[in-house]
């Protein structure tokens, strides 16, 4: 099937879309700069308008449809596939990307190495049939057998080329994919992925100091950035502040890895773990006695991630990355723009919704 995007400026762009392929996926495989954020039906960023042709609408209850005028032909590119040749319009400028980011594709692999990190957080790996390249901070869409729709998960590891992707997932009560993984914890389930995706990527060539703000499993992409920064010596020349928010000391994970990094780069890397559950938070490193291991160079703070922002190192050269639940991301953006004077160019985010 041919999809044609009519444009205000420039000739129409036409690309091939296989039957059942989501229009967003096909556009991205053709390196078109179509807008998207979650790629999973929740945010509404991928809205487009059908001018002619027929669509399979996929998930009818997608929360991202809330802001759309479906009766006027608006649809979500990440949920719809084409039933015929289609002409569509997109409310922003679209062109062929000249960025260095790898072109996303369908990937086949096997889930392995489940590892419970806390009561409700687990890590797992997917071993791919072929190697991929991606940037630290990117995510992939996981499709599990028998579950409707894909889910986005950010890569925790980083390597220039790899056939092994590591992820971390938080369990949600009633959540189809997270419960599937927690209950089955099957080593060797065959799964498919689509990726890499996402714009909130670490670009070492920009030579920026970093401010990393993570809520819960939002730490995933930050771990990949720290891993890459460590590999390429970035932390020898640049300051990096990480604020990692969890509920209580029992909910902390990756403590061993973070401690090791903080000890390696005592001058440039500052890591704060923010505990939001006030009843639990001691507000000092006394908490170390509660946790399974001493915290060494990690600082413990009381409160939400955005409440720690006033104490971080930041100037006009800093690039902030934010990932986690949407309210955490929104509150952090508000603080960075309102109190720290950050411009839009200095902020990259992923809302885990």
């Amino acid at each position: 099937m041919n999809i044609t995007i009519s444009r205000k400026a420039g000739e129409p762009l036409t690309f091939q879309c296989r039957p059942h392929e989501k229009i967003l996926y096909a556009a991205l495989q053709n390196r078109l700069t179509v807008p998207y954020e979650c790629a999973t039906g929740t945010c509404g960023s991928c809205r487009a308008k059908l001018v002619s042709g027929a669509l399979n609408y996929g998930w009818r209850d997608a929360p991202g449809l809330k802001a759309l005028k479906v009766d006027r032909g608006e649809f979500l590119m990440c949920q719809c596939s084409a039933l015929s040749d289609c002409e569509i319009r997109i409310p922003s400028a679209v062109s062929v990307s000249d960025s260095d980011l790898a072109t996303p594709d369908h990937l086949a692999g096997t889930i392995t190495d489940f590892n419970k990190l806390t009561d409700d957080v687990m890590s797992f790996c997917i071993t791919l049939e072929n190697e991929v390249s991606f940037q630290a901070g990117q995510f992939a869409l996981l499709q599990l057998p028998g579950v409707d729709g894909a889910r986005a998960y950010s890569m925790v590891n980083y390597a220039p080329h790899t056939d092994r992707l590591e992820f971390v997932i938080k369990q949600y009560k009633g959540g189809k994919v997270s419960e599937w993984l927690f209950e089955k914890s099957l080593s060797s389930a065959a799964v498919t992925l689509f990726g890499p995706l996402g714009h909130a990527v670490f670009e070492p060539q920009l030579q920026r100091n970093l401010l990393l703000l993570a809520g819960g499993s939002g730490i995933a992409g930050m771990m990949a950035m720290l891993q890459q920064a460590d590999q390429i010596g970035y932390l020898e020349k640049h300051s990096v502040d990480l604020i990692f928010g969890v509920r209580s000391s029992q909910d902390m994970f990756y403590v061993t890895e973070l401690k090791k990094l903080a000890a390696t780069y005592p001058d440039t890397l500052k890591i704060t773990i923010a505990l939001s559950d006030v009843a639990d938070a001691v507000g000092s490193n006394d908490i170390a006695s509660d946790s399974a291991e001493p915290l060494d160079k990690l600082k413990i703070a009381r409160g939400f991630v955005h409440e720690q922002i006033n104490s971080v190192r930041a100037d006009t050269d800093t690039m902030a990355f934010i990932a986690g639940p949407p309210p955490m991301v929104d509150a952090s953006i508000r603080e960075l723009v309102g109190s720290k004077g950050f411009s839009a160019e200095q902020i990259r985010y992923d809302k885990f919704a």
Partner: protein
Amino acid sequence: MTWKPVCSTQDVSEQTLKLCKVDGIALLVANVGDGFRAYPPVCPHMEEPLDESGICADGVLTCTKHLWQWDMRTGEAKGPAERPILMYDVRLDGDQVMVNLEKELEYDFDEDDDDDDY
């Protein structure tokens, strides 16, 4: 011209927004320091309510949803924003902020021949 009082200058402190309603029309009054401005109350990107998602700093209005930004004085788009923000005519009458509400300003999000949005 249909000038209507919408609020008092004291109601809106510097670099903040206030949601006002006059004759059933909702609008957002901004105090830019040396003057006042009034905008439709929704973000021209995806219609988020700007009284909740908007934040003002240094004469720039930012929608925290996807970081679209505008010059608060001129309404011009900045950074990733792809459309300007619409503005009502505003004047002061003593400490009353007066807005010309002849016609409610709205973004064409979905008209078929709308060239702005698509």
